[in-house]
């Protein structure tokens, strides 16, 4: 049975524990339960009392398609509430092969302690000197780790943003192509790792504990049906691998819901220049890759490799949210500038959504001109240094907005909004307001029914049906996040008759524990209950389940829609 590895970052003691009271949980359900039970809700996120939990899902280590995502849980330095940040990369499927279900980092050393690299093997943890990579951007730092540990390296690491405790700091994970290009993006989890003076975590590449399904025949049958479900839906089988997530630029623009110029407009004049179609064209011209997966066993392959004008690799994991934030919200038209900033965010280890929105706020505050990609690049390069401007930008929208005197701050619980204006896509707007995560689109992606025609149709301009839509999607998403699945499986599952049953069958046959559809729903609802419980004790109330007032007063062109929910109506979406 996989264990929970606890590591004290001050004493350097560690123990491999039986799961005990946490039996039956994985991924987000596990990280949220541990944080809720073990972290005092009013502690400071950078203090010794905060913990960082990295967990694979219930299907971690298995050969089920698209089941290798990893969850990172903590009290967020950005929101002050509970956070689960989800990532691709190799970590999720590797942990069980070292006999691990979760890694819990506790306590912190003295302020001037040096950074360490944690080396984790089957029965031992070593704190190794990280002075050779401390202060480095993630790509060169990761190259050093590759040289030291070999080509089968599986690492998690922070960049300068995490080392300097920025609220936008990510944890970057090794991808299947030996790059630190996958991110636990939102909420500043990298700053928590930085506060504990951990630069990198390396899983021993030589350990390979054999893992297998408890009921192998049932698993193989469910696994095969699962593949047909994913291959049988046009979004997961053709749409996502064909043009990637940035295909949404033109879709959301056409729908009049693409937040432009710091959430002033719903359409961007130059949407075509930053669209998925344009990106695919540039990639093809320059010999990159228009389709690739982010973790072993992914059959959706929605990601890509973007090359620069000289035909050299520039970035990957270059996704719709990033393209929108810099390209439409901050009005930058040059796709190469945007790709450079995607790369810089991976190098410094910072959230592209939060940083893109912070750039838009910096433009709104007169720091740099609207749409100036080169000036934005210079601001990003300052993050991770002791330049006060870099310290401000690295701390996200609310902090920078306060520094620059900007009134228009599109945040909920301190986290800024993603690429769908809530006034025109109310199904995701309800999620932004009510999820414990802060303004988060993945937590309950109402865009499906509001815009994409997946899982039914609910009018995104009206209130009717959107609270229920968001609530149901929030529970389903929390369950998906707890099983280790990539959220994009939802596109296929929402339109299928047996998708949810097959997910339950996969978990039951893999783990050997009875696991029905009801158990799957309870897993997701339970994670949300832990999150809401923690946030309440952290001081959040229904007053924090609201959007900023300007969404109510400012109609969004072209449809001139406004946000019109009351606080009490929105509470209907809570678990």
């Amino acid at each position: 049975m996989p264990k929970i590895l606890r590591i004290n970052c001050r004493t350097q003691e560690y123990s491999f524990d039986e799961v005990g009271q946490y039996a039956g949980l994985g991924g987000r359900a596990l990280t949220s339960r541990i944080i809720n039970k073990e972290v005092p809700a009013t502690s400071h996120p950078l203090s010794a009392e905060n913990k960082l939990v990295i967990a694979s899902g219930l299907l971690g280590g298995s050969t089920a398609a698209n089941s290798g995502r990893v969850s990172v849980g903590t009290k967020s330095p950005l929101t002050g509430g509970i956070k689960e940040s989800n990532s691709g990369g190799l970590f999720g499927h590797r942990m069980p092969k070292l006999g691990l279900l979760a890694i819990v980092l506790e306590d912190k050393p003295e302020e001037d302690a040096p950074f360490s690299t944690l080396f984790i093997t089957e029965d031992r943890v070593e704190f190794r000197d990280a002075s050779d990579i401390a202060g480095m951007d993630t790509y060169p730092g990761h190259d050093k780790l590759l040289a030291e540990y070999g080509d089968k390296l599986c690492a998690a690491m922070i960049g300068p943003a995490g080392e300097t405790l920025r609220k936008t700091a990510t944890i970057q994970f090794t991808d299947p192509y030996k790059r630190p290009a996958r991110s636990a993006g939102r909420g500043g989890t990298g700053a928590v790792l930085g506060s504990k003076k951990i630069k990198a975590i390396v899983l021993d590449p030589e350990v390979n504990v054999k893992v297998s399904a408890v009921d192998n025949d049932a698993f193989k049958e469910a696994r095969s049906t699962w593949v047909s479900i994913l291959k049988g839906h046009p979004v997961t089988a053709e749409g996502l691998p064909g043009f990637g997530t940035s295909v949404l630029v033109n879709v959301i623009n056409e729908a009049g819901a693409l937040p432009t110029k710091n959430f002033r407009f719903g359409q961007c004049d130059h949407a075509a220049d930053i669209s998925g179609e344009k990106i695919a064209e540039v990639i093809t011209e320059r010999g990159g890759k228009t389709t690739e997966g982010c973790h072993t066993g992914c059959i959706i392959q929605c990601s890509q490799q973007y090359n620069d004008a000289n035909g050299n690799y520039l970035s990957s994991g270059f996704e719709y949210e990033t393209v929108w934030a810099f390209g439409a919200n901050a009005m930058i038209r040059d796709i190469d500038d945007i790709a450079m900033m995607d790369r810089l965010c991976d190098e410094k280890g910072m959230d592209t959504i939060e940083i893109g929105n912070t750039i838009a706020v910096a433009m709104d505050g007169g720091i740099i001109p609207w749409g100036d990609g080169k000036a934005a690049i210079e601001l990003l390069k300052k993050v991770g240094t002791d330049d006060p401007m870099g310290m401000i930008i690295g701390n996200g929208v609310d902090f920078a907005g306060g520094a620059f005197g900007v009134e228009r701050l599109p945040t909920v619980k301190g986290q800024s909004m993603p690429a769908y204006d809530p006034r025109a896509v109310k199904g995701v707007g309800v999620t932004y307001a009510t999820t414990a995560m802060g303004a988060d689109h993945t937590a309950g992606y109402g865009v499906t029914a509001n815009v994409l025609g997946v899982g039914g149709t609910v009018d995104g301009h009206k209130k009717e049906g959107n609270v229920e839509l968001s609530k149901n999607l929030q529970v389903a998403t929390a369950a998906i996040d707890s099983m280790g699945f990539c959220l994009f499986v939802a596109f296929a599952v929402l339109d299928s008759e047996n998708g949810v049953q097959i997910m339950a069958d996969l978990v039951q046959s893999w783990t050997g524990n009875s696991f029905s559809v009801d158990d799957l729903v309870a897993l997701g609802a339970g994670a949300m209950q832990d999150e809401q419980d923690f946030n309440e004790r952290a001081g959040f109330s229904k007053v924090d389940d609201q959007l900023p007032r300007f969404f109510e007063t400012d109609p969004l062109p072209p449809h001139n829609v406004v946000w019109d929910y009351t606080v009490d109506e929105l509470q209907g979406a809570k678990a």
Partner: protein
Amino acid sequence: MGIEIKSFATLAKYLPENGQDYPIEPGETVRSLITKLGIPEKDVTLVFINALRSSLDSEIADGDRVGLFPPVGGG
């Protein structure tokens, strides 16, 4: 009567030369339009007319902007 047609992703190849001012008949629907353009019905999942979600049965009026998408997703 003329309309603006935008066809995206895998439908981009069906965009006619005169897509900026494409002639339509009175009573034209999205269905009759895509038939004229040679787009298989099963390939059209999302229809927007003047930024509002519409369907294959929706009628098109003079000066409308029609946006057509295959099945797509993202995050």
